[in-house]
């Protein structure tokens, strides 16, 4: 058996499953996107792409996802590094801390945020008491709310992914760097960061895709006045029952995300090359 065959065997179950259980169904669904009353049509795409409103929604989706990813990365890397460097016990508790938010049903969690962010919430109250805002000031149903809420849930994906990579880096490299005059922080920047890149990339990819394709948290925290594409898709499926349009939107979302991802993935492959 050749290496190639072995790898084939390794990847085959996943691949088959992916094709049969994912692509077949999804294609059946996406096929709708070009179906109109009278045969094939691109009307649904035109409707989306020819419409500033929907383009706005798409742009917001991508923009927010990028912001969320960025925040997660910026917060996640130091977090992961601290975890990697702290004692096993501390690390465990930090892990617990990071993953707990995932353990609450999204709606309930959102309620938590509501309590913190909305009109009578802690933060706006503070703002008000400090005279920074008027009575109706609220963070609920704003893009900030979406970012905050999403970061809280997506952080673990970033942190744990990076952590798992960091934990395999050869400590001697950092030592070597120190003997070559790196300050602690320089070491982190010049040695740890590049070596952790695969982790960061992977984490970023996860976070980005997740935030771009999730709709519950955004629609609860952002409200219907700040729509993201996934929410709009959900709406087309269940409320307006316009499945072809939903399919079209999905295709667009898919290609949009892919467009953003490709450079990342390239980068990762280069790192490994």
């Amino acid at each position, binding site marked *: 058996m050749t290496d*190639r065959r*072995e790898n*084939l065997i*390794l*990847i085959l179950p*996943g*691949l088959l*499953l*992916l094709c049969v259980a*994912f692509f077949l*169904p*999804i294609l*059946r*669904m996406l096929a709708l996107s070009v179906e109109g009353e009278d045969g094939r049509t691109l009307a649904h795409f035109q409707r989306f792409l020819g419409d500033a409103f929907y383009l706005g929604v798409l742009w917001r989706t991508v923009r927010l996802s990028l912001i969320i990813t960025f925040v997660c990365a910026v917060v996640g890397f130091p*977090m992961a590094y*601290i*975890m990697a*460097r702290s004692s*096993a016990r501390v690390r*465990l508790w*930090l892990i*617990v*801390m*990071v*993953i707990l*938010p*995932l*353990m*609450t*049903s999204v709606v*309930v969690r959102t*309620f*938590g945020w509501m*309590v*913190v962010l909305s009109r009578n919430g802690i933060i706006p109250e503070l703002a008000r008491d400090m005279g920074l805002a008027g009575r109706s000031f609220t963070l609920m149903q704003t893009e900030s709310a979406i970012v905050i809420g999403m970061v809280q849930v997506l*952080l673990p994906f970033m942190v744990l992914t990076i952590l*798992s*990579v960091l*934990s*395999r880096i050869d400590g001697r490299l*950092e030592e070597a760097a120190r003997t070559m005059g790196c300050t602690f*922080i320089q070491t982190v920047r010049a040695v740890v960061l590049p*070596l952790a890149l*695969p982790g960061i*990339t992977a*984490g970023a990819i*996860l976070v980005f*895709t997740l935030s771009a*394709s999730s*709709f*519950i948290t955004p629609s609860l925290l952002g409200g219907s006045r700040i729509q993201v*594409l*996934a929410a709009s*898709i959900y709406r087309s499926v269940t409320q307006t029952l316009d499945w072809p349009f*939903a399919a079209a939107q999905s295709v667009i*979302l898919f290609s949009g995300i*892919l467009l953003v*991802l*490709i450079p990342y*993935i390239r980068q990762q492959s280069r790192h490994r090359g």
Partner: protein
Amino acid sequence: MVSAVPAAWRVAGWIFVIAIGIFLLGPLVVVIGVSLSESQFIAFPPQGLSLKWYQAVLTDERYLSSAWISLRLALLVTCAATLIGGAAAIAIHRRSLPGSQALATLFLSPLILPTIIFAIGMLMFWSAVFGPLTFLTLAIGHLMICIPYVVRTTTAVLADADPFLEEAARTMGASRLQRLWHVVVPQCLPGLAVSAFFCFNISFDEAVLSLFLRHPGLTTLPVRIYGQLEFSPDPSVAAVSSIMIGITVILLVVIDRILGIHRISAT
């Protein structure tokens, strides 16, 4: 003494951690608070303290059965996904397959498409081809959205593995399987552990697929919670979440005591 970290940075580090802690756990405190509330409706600060909502949940056989279903589902999915995904990740990492990078992206696609589209598609497809829904349908659905996590994290972990180790194993007569088990798996262990956790959590918390791919006997916990919220929202949902929080903590600590996650997380 890699950890020759200047004191200033240590302090900064801890402040940072605490800040993050507050940010992450603040809302959860609210949730727990709500779950202890006397009142009928979700409100904070809680009006009066009581455990009645916990009692309500723990005695409500529908919650329990849903929880049981979710648990079984999550366990099954976790095992399957970690196996299949891990294998795929290893294959992709070795780069002997054409366009392994494209493959990696392919495996990501279930994440990229909104679950609802997949859910509907799956529903149409399944009922068209296999007819009535089963536990398996939902399991497969969850499997598909879990595998991407496994593939991503594991390939990331393998990225900087020492290539010589596997070769050394080969020269020592390790068969392919042995090699996988004794050399490669230990190397991607951290990745597998993490992604296993992801899978469990995703599957246990997933609502959309579960919403569409269910049948009377198959209502997962999240779906149950939505049903509850939609019509008569009361602190019981908060109680459920609080219980899950508690279980997570206890589980992690117990598992750690027994077989030491920290060792896994330390590898």
